[in-house]
């Protein structure tokens, strides 16, 4: 044990956000308003800011890594724009790419929490290609960085698709207003990042993942085996 480096513990978080046309207006504005709130949490809460590193992947017909895995406190936030259709396969390819690149960017020997991906969509897959194989690539147990995927559906989201995306935890937002739904989802993401960042080690509950998903705003969906 003679290395000279410092390797600080990291909790890697990947936000996977649907930016298809149906997100136009209030929903995409709610996403853009939530990102500064997440940044503020990182800056103001030492327990979160010292550990959590966040990446943002948006998807429509294609996926874009809008923010590579980074300390949000020192990151210039992009404005997320609405695009076109909904391609879940592109989303999962983009997620896997973001995770591989993000984890490779960490200093060698960095102690890491299991990565968590928060997926949110208001629709269903509309592209011609099948998305199951891209999802399977992300859930592949042989992949070292296989993330926990927590999925959130709102608006016209397909419940079964939202269930299929999740590794264990899937939720549908309850409110009838998509803007409120997006706001509640983003609040749940920030709360879950906060509670997981300050929690340690629970072998029987959630593999270290601690969700803050209030029952008054979300309906838990039963797990769907893929």
């Amino acid at each position, binding site marked *: 044990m*003679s290395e000279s480096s410092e390797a600080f513990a990291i909790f890697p978080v990947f936000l996977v956000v649907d930016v298809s046309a149906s997100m136009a207006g209030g929903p995409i504005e709610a996403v853009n308003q939530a990102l500064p709130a997440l940044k503020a949490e990182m800056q103001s809460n030492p327990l979160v*800011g010292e550990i959590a590193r966040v990446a943002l992947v948006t998807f429509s017909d294609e996926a874009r890594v809008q923010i590579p895995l980074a300390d949000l406190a020192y990151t210039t936030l992009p404005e997320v724009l609405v695009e076109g259709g909904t391609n879940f396969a592109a989303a999962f390819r983009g997620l896997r790419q973001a995770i591989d690149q993000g984890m490779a960017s960490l200093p060698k020997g960095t102690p890491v*929490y299991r990565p968590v991906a928060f997926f949110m969509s208001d629709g269903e897959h509309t592209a011609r290609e099948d998305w199951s194989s891209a999802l399977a690539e992300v859930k592949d147990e042989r992949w070292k960085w296989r993330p926990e995927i927590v999925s959130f559906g709102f608006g016209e989201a397909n419940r079964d698709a939202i269930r299929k995306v999740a590794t264990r935890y899937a939720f549908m937002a309850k409110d009838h207003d998509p803007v409120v739904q997006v706001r509640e989802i983003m609040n749940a993401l920030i709360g879950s990042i906060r509670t997981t960042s300050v929690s340690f*080690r629970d072998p029987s509950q959630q593999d270290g993942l601690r969700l803050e998903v209030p029952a008054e705003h979300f309906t838990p969906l039963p797990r769907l085996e893929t």
Partner: protein
Amino acid sequence: MGDQEVRDLSTQAPTIGRVMPLAGAATREGQPPRRPEVALDAAASDGVRAAGASLAGVRHLSEGTCRQDSFGIFVVQPGRICVVVVDGLGSRVASHLGADLFVDAVGQLTWENQGLAAPADLLVAASERTEQVAASVYGLSASDIAFVGLVAVIGPDQGEVARLGDVSAFALAGDEFTEVFEPDDKFINVVEMSLPNAEAAHKIEVKPLPPGPMVFATDGLAQDLRTSAAVRAWLADYWRSPLTAFAMGDSLRYRRQGSHDDRTGVVVWPST
């Protein structure tokens, strides 16, 4: 009424990395009976010396919840010391109680058998006793009090350590810390097995201890030893010779980016 000024002791302990300022600690109401946020001890017998400290982690101080680590140092025969180090699992409401009960059980068992039991046997027997006491006295299940733990017995001629879970042992020689158990490369927030556990006897890892000073540590300290050259340098220098209980506590007062867990360590310096 306004906040009163709180004084602290000065320390030379380093700050490593980007460490944000912490809000003042507040003890949250509605929690299970709490325990001291710091525990210190030192012992000596026939030239063998040991010192241990357990400090509540930044996370607990920030949340107003209590330390969940525990440790014990027991002189069981002249020149023979038993060390127990325990890490209560974070989310269990009474894991701190389980950690303390386990330490008590190991101490009682070493007293009953004059220190002749092997560490693995002590670990299994203490785990069973802890589960019984938790159920009969407190009405708590094994899950309520879950923890991981290590028991070591160090005599004048030999030493051995047994553990279940990721409590760690290091040999300290000069500036070098050498792990006794193979460190795993799992994610740091995932634990696969804990005590009390009916399968414990089949899952325990046992290793002989090399001669020289030994360090036993819970994950909060062990991770820093593995991943921080600055922590290793600070502690190797501080632990180069036996310490009092207060000095042992001061050695663990460093601040480090991302190091929020409880820190517990026991160092044993053999007779020279």
